[in-house]
């Protein structure tokens, strides 16, 4: 396992489209639920233990060699909001494009051919990790970290939050992020239907509302 490869994959600058998405923070800011570093931390913690855990388990299972198409259906079943399903597939497609250029692999080609409009991003992330020579735990780490990293960056842009405070939020969540990744990896050898299905209903509901806004900074 190459640590540098994991850092590259988890880097927010990896060109896979994430910069245009807030992970639900934009809707939470509008509703007044996220307004400072403390409320951002609570938002990120909730996201990590719900959507983050579910994503990390899907990514970990894909990296472990589960059938990505079965995992893609499992991701559908775990994502009630059509807007979030669209977002997940769009980001999966964008990640697939970047990964096929950086870590070419027939397994990626096969999933791209089977899901030309994009598979769910966590599934793609796990398969990309596999193609890059990373294991199920590393895939889970990347997914868990990403589930909060993008949200914190978006909060900086939306609130004019001090970027140092937002980064400190992520640092305080580091131990929990690692723990979620370990839980996800531990679950990844289970049958697909037994993978974690934690969800945050408010994220699903506000994603649907956000998708109807005519003025917004982020695509989701």
């Amino acid at each position, binding site marked *: 396992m190459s640590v540098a490869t994991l850092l590259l994959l988890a880097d927010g*600058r990896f*060109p*896979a*489209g*994430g*910069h*245009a*998405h*807030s992970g639900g923070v934009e809707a939470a800011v509008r509703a007044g639920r996220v307004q400072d570093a403390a409320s951002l931390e609570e938002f990120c913690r909730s996201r990590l233990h719900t959507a983050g855990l579910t994503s990390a388990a899907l990514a970990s299972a894909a990296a472990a060699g589960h059938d990505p198409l079965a995992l*893609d*259906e499992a991701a*559908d079943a775990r994502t009630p909001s*059509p807007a979030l*399903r*669209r977002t997940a*597939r*769009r980001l999966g*497609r*964008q990640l*697939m*494009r*970047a990964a*096929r*250029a950086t870590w070419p692999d027939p397994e990626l080609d096969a999933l*791209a*051919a089977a*899901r*030309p*409009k994009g*598979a769910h991003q966590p599934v793609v992330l796990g398969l990309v990790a596999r193609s890059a020579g990373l294991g199920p735990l590393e895939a889970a780490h990347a997914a868990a970290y990403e589930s909060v990293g993008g949200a914190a960056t*978006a909060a900086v*842009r939306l609130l004019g939050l001090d970027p140092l405070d937002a980064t400190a939020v992520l640092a305080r969540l580091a131990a929990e992020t690692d723990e979620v990744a370990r839980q996800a990896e531990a679950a990844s050898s289970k049958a697909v239907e037994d993978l974690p299905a934690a969800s945050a209903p408010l994220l699903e509901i506000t994603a649907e509302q956000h998708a109807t806004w*005519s*003025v*917004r*900074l*982020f*695509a989701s």
Partner: protein
Amino acid sequence: MHLDHTDTIHPERHSASAARPDGSRRALRVGLGGPVGSGKTATVAALCRTLRDRLSLAVVTNDIYTREDAAFLLREAVLPPERITAVETGACPHTAIRDDISANLEAVEDLEEDIGPLDVVLVESGGDNLTATFSKGLVDVQIFVIDVAGGDDIPRKGGPGVTTADLLVVNKTDLAPYVGSDLAGMARDAQEQRGELPVLFQSLRGEPGVGPVADWVREQLSAWTATAVLPA
């Protein structure tokens, strides 16, 4: 089958290859960038009206936080709605055209897959600053649009857009007398910054209109058609 299945097949590519999946040549991609309010959308609209009778066109807009630009082009009916796509940029228009071009590439490719062979796709950046340029992975040639009312010192200040764009358009020349802009000085400064690269002065309110810029796009298309290398 997943829940949001679509039957349309969009073969994926990850490079700026000149070939489409069926082996045919893809459209020429022209980027239009420049500061807010310099007339990028108006130029795109005028180009569409001038070129649409002879060429198959499509437009991708990169609005910063609304769908205003796409909505304007739709309202003006410069092209049928299926030929206009808006990309959302997460408050960073330059990121979407330079650092992480994946959403724009998808928009361009989807237009070509859905509509069929296109001659030219115009990719309009959201209004940004003087450093914003397009990635060569996204567009083949780029136009940087500034205007005389934004300050006649912009060509002198240079920056990547003014200095390196394949075409610099100085727009709204009709306003020059009212804002005290020195067009001759702008032309001199622009040439100093750009050397041999072309500069066109444009007023969409009168003559010569978008004609010279449209001619430049036609020349680029001819060059693209003659030289774009397709895999054997």
